[in-house]
């Protein structure tokens, strides 16, 4: 099982080396800068669509929400409309909290007891915090990258950049300079959250035991992406103008190999391409799947509104007639009413 993270780590390092060698040694610029990103994007779209449509192809025969609060019942009993929704609005609310705030994961902290209360619940909230930090930081980082694809840069991206760089960190020493260009908090939050999630997987026996290589791989991959991004923004600076020109070229289907950009950019680009291509074929599809989870996206109004199962088929049952046939005598003897007296 330790093979799992060793393997994933090695693969990610190898991928980085391949990108570097591909550009610096073999000079396959066209392949790595143009073919790979396009192929990755196509794989993403096809894979994503296939996966989601595959799910859509399966039926939802029953309405099986996991109810996490009081149901809609008598009018004087207060219903928990979010955790046990009986209307579409309620379901939308529940899904919103689930997707936007990871409500179920947060639930872990709810129980607190004074006596004997110790560590275990604390790391649970850390899982929630780290998960939330990771996802939001990642979203901000992705959205910030839109500046490379739009000219002029959209207002909301500028606002996001402004907010992200609101806190100024400036540190200036011979071997470590950071602060110009302005520090984006999201990148560091992303990296920190990733390291926490990775550490959790490696050091918590339980989680390590259930983790597969495919759990470590995306972590290492995104760590690689975040680290290379941070390196090239603050430490080994690259020609941003050339990169934007390249990105716009990709987006307008007039790709052009960028010139004079540091090798670390190619590593970054290649790792991102791998992530994008890998996404639909992995557990990362939880991003799409969460919308389709039948225990969350259905209202608990089963007794109020009939749910139709399209493949419902008739089955052989033991009818009353068969039953009475077998026990008629005993029923009559016991004075239980029967359909046919003889």
């Amino acid at each position, binding site marked *: 099982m330790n093979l799992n993270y060793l393997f994933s*780590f090695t693969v990610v*390092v190898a991928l980085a080396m391949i990108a570097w060698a591909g550009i*610096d040694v073999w000079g396959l610029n066209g392949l790595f800068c143009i073919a790979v990103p396009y192929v990755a994007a196509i794989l993403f779209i096809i894979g994503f669509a296939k996966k989601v449509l595959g799910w859509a192809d399966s039926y939802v025969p029953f309405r099986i929400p996991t109810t996490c609060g009081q149901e809609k019942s008598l009018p004087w009993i207060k219903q928990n409309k979010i955790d046990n929704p009986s209307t579409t609005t309620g379901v939308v609310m529940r899904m919103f909290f689930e997707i936007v705030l990871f409500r179920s994961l947060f639930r872990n902290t709810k129980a607190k007891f004074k006596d004997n209360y110790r560590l275990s619940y604390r790391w649970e909230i850390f899982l929630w915090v780290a998960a939330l930090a990771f996802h939001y930081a990642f979203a901000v980082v992705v959205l910030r990258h839109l500046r490379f694809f739009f000219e002029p840069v959209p207002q909301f991206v500028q606002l996001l950049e402004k907010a992200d760089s609101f806190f100024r960190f400036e540190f200036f020493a011979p071997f470590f300079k950071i602060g110009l260009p302005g520090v984006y908090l999201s990148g560091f939050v992303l990296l920190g959250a990733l390291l926490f999630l990775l550490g959790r997987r490696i050091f918590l026996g339980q989680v390590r035991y259930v983790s597969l290589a495919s759990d470590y791989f995306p972590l290492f991959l995104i760590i690689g992406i975040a680290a290379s991004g941070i*390196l090239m923004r603050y430490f*080994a600076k690259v020609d941003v103008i050339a990169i934007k020109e390249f990105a716009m070229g990709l987006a307008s289907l007039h790709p052009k190999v960028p*010139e*004079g*950009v*540091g090798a670390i950019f190619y590593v970054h680009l290649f790792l991102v391409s791998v992530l994008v291509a890998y996404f639909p074929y992995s557990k990362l599809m939880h991003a799409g799947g969460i919308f389709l989870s039948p225990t969350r996206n259905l209202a608990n109004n089963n007794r109020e509104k009939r749910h139709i199962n399209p493949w419902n088929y008739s089955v052989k049952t033991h009818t009353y007639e068969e039953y009475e046939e077998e026990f008629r005598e005993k029923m009559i003897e016991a004075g239980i009413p029967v359909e046919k007296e003889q």
Partner: protein
Amino acid sequence: MENSRRMFLKMAGITAAGLAAAPALTTLASSGPGEKHKEKPVGKVMNNADALTAKHWGMVIDTRKFTSASDLEPIIEACNKIHNIPKFDDDLKAMMFSSDKKRHEIKWIWEEEFGHLFPDCENRYLAERLRHIPFLALCNHCENPPCVRACPTKATFQRADGIVMMDYHRCIGCRFCMAACPYGSRSFNFRDPREGLKEINVEYPTRMRGVVEKCNFCAERLAKGQLPACVEASNGAILFGDLDDPDSDVRAALRGRVLEPSLPFITSYNNMRWSCLIQR
């Protein structure tokens, strides 16, 4: 299992160390197709050849030479102009929210009455004359400045030559320094200072909204071999020199006069106090 974990950590460590190493970074940054020559140039930094230097800069103001506000005006004006000190005549906000119209005033060197400047020297036997003549006030450049201690970002710092400087880039506008300064020598930019400037001295930067500012003993002029603007404009009423040099003008002006701290509870050794003694 233990073994492989350790091995992994080791590998991770080596990689991290490798990535962190400066040469690797340079390589990463410099390689790629096209221009291959982007090694970081090694520039050197040095002092200007004609800069005025001192072990400890000090200023002595001979208040006997100022009798009316008009005597101070050109001096203040010189400073304001050079340093882009804004002046808001129509500070509506200030008028609305505070009875003190000068609340949002930015000042580096300014006119002050005796009692405000030397609160401990004021007593009812004070010469009547002193109650009416204006005095010049500016940052004391204390020897042991409380503002420097108060600043959380080290935006306010003391140079080796005694000048208490502001690094506006670092100022976060917390105003701890203003609270710490016993002399009220610091001002906060409630508004964009450019709004209060009719004319801008292009060569000297303005500040932005939300930072604190104060007199810098014209550090930028000293670097070019020039005396502070106020000194230049004072016709000799203000002396400027090295306090650590026994032969300097300032030491000569002070010779034979008693030195005592102006505010007993401030431990700083305060240059401004001396002007008070001279006028007595």
